[in-house]
């Protein structure tokens, strides 16, 4: 029992409520959110180190013991993702100060931002399937508001579709929870896992597993269910887009991690093969999108889909190297996607266009921006010393060990295509003759560049310091591969 476990959720809740009362005082709101996110990082770092030294931390909410009440469980995977979320939250917050505009700030941008963090952190930390649904809804509600805030035509149009898709998937979630409850009679994840082990996953549970895959796949944008993503993520302003791209799809992937390693792992021939095929198709679709478009936003958005495919493929292989690869890669991807969105935001601001054919020659006036983008781009593609390399290498090793050579080839090929798609942005955007007159200092980029550079620096450190990160990652993988550790920690047997 440790109240620390729930603090990453309570802290943004407290901040968000406080910020609502200060709606008209924008400067104060900024300072409080910044201060709060710094504390949030400290809390989540402390959580990571506590989990590292003490093993899985649990908290029975309201002192109800595990199978009867809701439990909050912080294992290493959840703790690491919470830390990453908080770091990204702070960087995007800093970027928002310069770009989001006073009108949106006055209309509760910062409180809603905090509410989104509640939902995301809560979804990572919960140990109860229905509670996961509730935190999903908290997160989605905040994301609806962020998406539509500002009320431009494209935002309204895309929000409608986004909300309808998500209402549908929420209903599906409730339906699947109902079926699972009727079969197993429990909603506590640890107890579900225990009972599935007792009955050795009959076919009905494999069907429910695929049902959950549909629900989380809709959130995480895997192959046949991704169509809402390019449109919806295109509409909002850049900081919101970065927040969505870095966090929302990852919550879906995290849930697949949880359900497919903790609960539905007995019938791998069916469920995990299905997952592997979907992952490969997801990568394929993402690659096609990423190289087809000339629009910077679209290119990066399709890169999200590729990353989703790569991570899901790592989960589907389900052996030790592949899972560590997936965890390394999901954290890398969250950091670098946020950074890339912020960087293209600056490029769009400078050139006034989202089409890379309208840009050009920015490297002379904005060398710092250009080189930051270059490092982010090669990190994304996974060039050796940078982050992304270790994760991808481990996924490939795992796939080789499992003999899944088609998947291996797809992941390798996708890296090349990712490199091509981001280098296209670099070459067209920064090289060549300037398409417009980018006078020195016409757009003050330094204050916007700082948060992006901060994220890139962290991801470079993360890439170079993989050796330092590895004990944490292997602790997370140990829990995923041996669900007994999780069950024992939660049910205290």
């Amino acid at each position, binding site marked *: 029992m440790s109240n620390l476990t729930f603090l990453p959720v309570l802290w943004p809740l407290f901040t968000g409520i406080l910020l609502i009362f200060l709606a008209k005082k924008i400067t104060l709101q900024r300072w409080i959110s910044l201060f709060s996110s710094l504390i949030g990082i400290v809390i989540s770092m402390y959580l990571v180190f506590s989990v590292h030294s003490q093993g899985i931390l649990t908290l029975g909410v309201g002192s109800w013991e595990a199978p009867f009440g809701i439990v909050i469980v912080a294992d290493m995977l959840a703790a690491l993702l919470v830390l990453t979320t908080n770091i990204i939250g702070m960087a995007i917050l800093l970027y928002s100060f310069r770009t989001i505009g006073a009108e949106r700030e006055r209309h509760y941008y910062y409180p809603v931002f905090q509410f989104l963090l509640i939902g995301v952190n809560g979804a990572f930390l919960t140990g109860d399937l229905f509670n996961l649904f509730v935190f999903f809804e908290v997160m989605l509600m905040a994301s609806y508001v962020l998406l539509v805030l500002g009320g431009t035509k*494209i935002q309204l*149009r895309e929000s409608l579709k986004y909300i*309808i898709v998500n209402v549908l998937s*929420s209903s599906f979630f*409730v339906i699947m929870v*109902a079926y699972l*409850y*009727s079969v197993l009679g429990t*909603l506590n994840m640890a107890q579900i896992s225990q009972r599935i082990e007792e009955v050795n996953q009959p076919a009905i549970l494999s069907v429910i597993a695929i049902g959950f895959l549909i629900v989380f796949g809709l959130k995480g944008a895997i192959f046949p269910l991704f169509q809402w993503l390019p449109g919806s993520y*295109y509409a909002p302003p850049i900081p919101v887009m970065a927040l969505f791209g870095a966090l929302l799809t990852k919550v879906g992937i995290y849930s697949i991690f949880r359900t497919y390693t903790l609960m539905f792992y007995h019938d791998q021939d069916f469920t995990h093969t299905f997952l592997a095929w979907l992952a490969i198709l997801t990568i394929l679709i993402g690659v096609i999108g990423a190289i087809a478009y000339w629009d910077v936003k679209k290119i990066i958005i399709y890169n999200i889909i590729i990353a989703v495919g790569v991570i899901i493929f790592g989960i589907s292989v389900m052996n030790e190297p592949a899972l560590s690869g997936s965890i390394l890669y999901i954290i890398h991807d969250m950091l670098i996607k946020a950074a890339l969105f912020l960087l293209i935001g600056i490029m769009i601001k400078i050139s006034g266009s989202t089409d890379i054919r309208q840009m050009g020659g920015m490297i002379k006036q904005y060398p710092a921006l250009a080189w930051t983008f270059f490092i982010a781009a090669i990190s994304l593609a996974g060039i050796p010393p940078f982050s992304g390399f270790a994760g991808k290498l481990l996924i490939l090793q795992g796939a080789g060990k499992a003999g899944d050579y088609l998947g291996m080839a797809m992941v390798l090929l996708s890296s090349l295509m990712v490199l091509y798609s981001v280098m296209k942005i670099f070459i067209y955007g920064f090289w060549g003759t300037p398409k417009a007159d980018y006078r020195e200092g016409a757009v003050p980029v330094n204050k916007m560049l700082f948060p992006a550079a901060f994220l890139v620096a962290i991801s470079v450190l993360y890439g170079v310091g993989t050796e330092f990160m590895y004990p944490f990652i292997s602790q997370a993988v140990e829990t995923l591969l041996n669900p007994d550790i999780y069950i024992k920690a939660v049910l205290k047997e």
Partner: protein
Amino acid sequence: MELLMAIVIGILFMCATYLMLSKSMIRIIIGTGLLSHGAHLLILTMGGLKGGSVPLLSDKAASYADPLPQALILTAIVISFGVTSFLLVLAYRSYQELGTDDMEELRGTETNE
């Protein structure tokens, strides 16, 4: 009783699917409402419709009603009402702004402007 509930849930899902496939915004919203009601009824039914006393530890009844599905649908109903009201407001606002409630006309165009 479970059989009757299953048929009712099926009818709700059928109507929801029909409504959600139409072009008109308001029909789609009513469809999502029916869909979530169907899902809530499903939770209640899936727990098994046991009769019996209220689930209190001190009360020595022969059988108890299962409290969990009721707790679950209570939460789910609140959430679905919240989302539906948000969706209605959004639909009204976008009808004002975009001048149509036809989903066909709200498609993203080639350049997504």
